[in-house]
């Protein structure tokens, strides 16, 4: 049995008219029919392409964030005794690295952390926490660099009285990975020292949840306030 011309199969798949004997052959030939079907499926999909399906590059910050995060995997730069002036300029580098400009953030961060002579408190990140429920006013959060350590400050007022308690979390952008940073006093807010080496860029979302005394340490999924840190 001689099959019909492959080019003709493509034209039939595109819906062009064909000779009756070619169409008859396709109907009776499993192989030609399946080729027509496959190419028809491609053509149908392609015809559904809209302008928004044409690939466009992501915003430039996406690469910066990837570079910053993968920079954390690079070997840690050995730290050594440095003068205060030098440490300050390193501080600037650490800040730059945390917003994704430089690779190797962990190394420079450690250089800052080990320098205890600099007692200035600098705000390195802040967030406005939007109410998700039950709360009318947004809360504020900021991360300060104090004596080489990072501290999260949460200022929240007007949290409703509860027979449970409020817990503060740092979430990864996927809202799946998270770190508990402590219990929040509903009337005063609180200060939470963050573990050394914590990469805020990897856990940039501050979340406050309502928890119950149920012995379950996992997030209750009952978030009250949430906001993303601007680093």
């Amino acid at each position, binding site marked *: 049995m001689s099959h019909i011309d*492959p*080019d003709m199969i493509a034209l039939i798949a595109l819906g062009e008219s064909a000779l009756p004997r070619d169409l008859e052959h396709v109907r009776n030939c499993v192989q030609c029919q399946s080729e027509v079907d496959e*190419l028809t499926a491609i053509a149908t999909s*392609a015809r559904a392409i809209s302008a928004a399906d*044409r690939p466009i590059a992501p915003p430039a910050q996406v690469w910066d964030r*990837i570079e910053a*995060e*993968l920079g954390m995997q690079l070997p840690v730069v050995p730290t050594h005794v440095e003068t205060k002036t030098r440490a300050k300029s390193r501080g600037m580098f650490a800040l730059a690295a945390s917003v994704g400009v430089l690779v190797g953030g962990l190394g420079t961060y450690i250089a800052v952390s080990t320098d205890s002579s600099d007692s200035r408190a600098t705000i390195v990140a802040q967030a406005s926490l939007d109410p998700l429920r039950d709360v009318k006013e947004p809360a504020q959060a900021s991360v300060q660099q104090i004596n080489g350590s990072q501290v999260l400050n949460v200022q929240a007022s007007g949290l409703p009285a509860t027979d449970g308690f409020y817990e503060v979390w740092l979430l990864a*952008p*996927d809202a799946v990975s998270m770190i508990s940073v402590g219990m929040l006093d509903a009337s005063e807010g609180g200060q939470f020292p963050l573990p050394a080496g914590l990469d805020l860029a990897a856990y940039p979302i501050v979340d406050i949840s309502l928890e119950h005394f149920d012995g379950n340490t996992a997030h209750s999924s009952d978030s009250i306030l949430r906001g993303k840190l601007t680093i």
Partner: protein
Amino acid sequence: MNIMHTVVDERSGFGARADKAPTVKEEADRELTERFSLGHESAMRDIYERWSGLVYTIAMRSTRNSADASDVTQMVFIAAWKGRAGFDPNSGALPAWLLGICRRKIADFYSAKVRIEIAASATVEEVEAQSLHHVETDSIETVIDRVVLADELGRLGDPQQKIMELAFFNDLTHIQIASVLDLPLGTVKSHIRRSLDRLKTRLEANSVTH
């Protein structure tokens, strides 16, 4: 809904072009894949440049939000780099592997979103209404197929790209296309066949899962 079939035929796909040397682009992709799997850091940037548009646009079509699409894109490439030991260059193409990660990250995004909605919603009814809304959007496979096809269409080069756009989007016959572009009929016919085969091969490569 994936439109791929598993029928193998010697007249379609790469088989039809077995007598030809790999194109410059295919050679470049192969070399890039090799550097990536060997863990060369320069390959990460190249891979991002080559495929981030594809991943971002799929995420954008799926999440309909530039910030979410950016987050998904970031997670896909970071997972790819960290998980590169799990990539076997012999068992499939790198873009197919990346798209596999992309599918999972978009699924993760939706399950996290549902959790957040449950946390944020006052009533169960609200969550159900929002879940119903998700069902109305295109399935991830349909989105991937279309974006991948749009990508490949843009890589066909001319006159193939022009020919296929006239055939797909302007519904011109090969005779009309030949006349519009002032090309021989036989040339148009064989370009149509080869271009359809190339689009099909590209889609098949992407449907390979790891």
